[in-house]
């Protein structure tokens, strides 16, 4: 038998996966619907907040943050961006996108920072984690969109889940890197003065890794924003909508305006969070 006869002998991996996902959906869909709940609540809360706050309050909040952390020029840029978004008629979509981005980033931080700390302190854990992170960052979103929709139904929550999958790795990686960059002598000194492992983490490693963790958070925000359009494909609202609609109906102007708003919003969030990281 010729083991290189690829035409006759094939591994039916695709079928297995198909079967597995079908089986999951058939038997465990309810459980996945429960997992959905915390995300749904957080998102609804945020959306309600941004919908209720009058635009001038939102603009003021962002302007103050920009002023506080990033200086005059960023403040001016922030003001102009939000005014432009308002005049382009994209205010509501922008608020939806902001809620989604904030929601996914919060979940990424809550899961990612502890995972990053563990990876930073244990070579073995880092080794196990790394292929998963690689897969999360490189698997085309379209591949997991379908199973996500099958398990969690169409809508904003599925959009957020897909976003989390994609945006989680940088904060884990950069938290781990930050912990690893702390000089071993400092850890040794802390131990020599009777620090427990927890004290080493809290008093030495974590504060010194903070700039790196903030850089990770910034990356995670950027990546979350880059998922806005893809999330719109599975029914999440927000700024991805005009882009997707524009593409579907060949209304180039509409698509471009949506894209412009995403880019401007990304720049505002990037400058402000970078400013926080430097403080």
């Amino acid at each position, binding site marked *: 038998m010729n083991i290189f006869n690829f035409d006759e002998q094939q591994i039916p991996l695709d079928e297995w996966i198909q079967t597995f996902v079908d089986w999951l959906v058939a038997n465990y869909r309810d459980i996945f619907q429960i997992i959905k709940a915390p995300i749904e609540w957080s998102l609804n809360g945020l959306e309600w907040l941004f919908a209720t706050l009058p635009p001038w309050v939102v603009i003021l909040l962002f302007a103050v943050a920009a002023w506080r952390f990033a200086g005059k020029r960023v403040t001016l840029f922030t003001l102009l961006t939000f005014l432009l978004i308002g005049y382009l008629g994209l205010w509501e979509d922008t608020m939806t996108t902001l809620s989604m981005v904030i929601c996914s980033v919060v979940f990424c931080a809550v899961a990612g920072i502890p995972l990053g700390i563990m990876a930073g302190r244990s070579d073995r854990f880092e080794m196990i984690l790394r292929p998963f992170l690689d897969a999360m960052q490189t698997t085309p979103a379209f591949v997991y969109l379908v199973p996500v929709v099958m398990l969690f139904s169409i809508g904003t929550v599925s959009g957020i889940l897909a976003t989390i999958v994609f945006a989680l790795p940088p904060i884990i990686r950069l938290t781990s890197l930050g912990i690893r960059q702390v000089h071993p*002598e*400092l850890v040794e*000194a*802390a131990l*020599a*003065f009777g620090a427990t492992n927890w004290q080493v983490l809290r008093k030495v490693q974590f504060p010194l890794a903070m700039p790196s963790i903030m850089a990770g958070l910034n990356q995670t925000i950027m990546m979350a924003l880059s998922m806005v359009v893809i999330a719109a494909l599975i029914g999440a609202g927000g700024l991805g909508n005009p882009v997707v609609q524009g593409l579907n109906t060949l209304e180039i102007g509409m698509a471009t305006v949506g894209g412009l708003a995403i880019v401007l919003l990304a720049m505002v969030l990037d400058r402000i969070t970078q400013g926080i990281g430097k403080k």
Partner: protein
Amino acid sequence: MDVTPKIAIKNLFKIFGPQPKKARTLLEQGLSKEEIFELTETTIGVQNASFEIYAGEIFVIMGLSGSGKSTIVRMLNRLIEPTSGQVFVDNEEITSMNRGQLVQMRRKKMSMVFQSFALMPHMSVLQNAAFGLEMDGIDRKTREERALKALEQVGLEAWAESMPAELSGGMQQRVGLARGLATDPEVLLMDEAFSALDPLIRTEMQDELLRLQARQKRTIVFISHDLDEAMRIGDRIAIMEGGRVVQVGTPEEILQNPADDYVRAFFRGVDPTNILTAGDIALDSQVTIVIADGKSPRAALQRLIKNDRDYGYVVDSERHFKGIVSTDSLREVIERPEVDQTIPNAYLPGAKPAFSGDYMQDILPQVASHPWPLAILDDDGKYLGAISKNLFLRTLHRSEQVENGTLEGPATK
């Protein structure tokens, strides 16, 4: 010095790498550290080290780079876990402590100063000095008071609110020292604490350490690869080579009786007259004449002639030094009228004694300028012995042999 040791280490081993058991067996078969590394990629960090450190002394561990100094000092507080062997502090076995006991021991009893300072860059000078107390859960007010006191001891109280990066190297290490002192430990471990400082600052820091030590005696384990430093501050020195402790003793003992060529090579280029004192080399081989029992110059002369000596060292019944007489001066006194025939009249003018703590360098002019051996007294003025030109030269000659030894000398930076 205390009889019970403050710190005792017994048969301590540290073997780094993948095959510690095999390395141990090979070591017992007599293979060298290098051969073992070739065979097993396993490094012998410390092998079979045993010694004792007494309370209140500055114990210096010396050796070339890679000889295991840092490893041995880190096994004292178990920053490095020994492969085998025991460490005792105050008769408590450190090596059998559990995590919690160990943490308590590090907080209360033993602190450390590092070559690279290892100050926390995100904390102020005051917070750094208070670090050990903070780990111990002492409230902010108390710990900052104590930290400030420690900073005062090293003269840095004015810099309490600065960040470490704003300070010079010497000042940073003062903060490191203050951090070590703030917890008021009985034992201070210093791993090449002054090696990163330039020579002038280094000497200044050594003086600072000696000053602090004079005020409050702690047991200090000081790592150094600088012989001058070791001689300057060490009460006793241990010399390490390739993970072994080859010799332990006072600087004088080691200088006079180096255990092997390695130790000898270490002392190459050291000027012994700076290190050896009169007390180290004086010999009690001269004739002493006790004045109290009313000995006459005649009897004294008899004694000198009988012992075939030209000079006699006159002491009282408690061995307090009185003067030196010679056969010539005694004969001259015997010629005099009866009343003047006393031993004090025969004292050689200019025969001043020296003291046991004087360095060889300091007594050289006196040894050289008189024909008689120089009398050496202890601090109470009692006669210890004498140093002849011959003896002085012999001592120099012996250390010259050390200097001309065939071994490549260690780099003393």
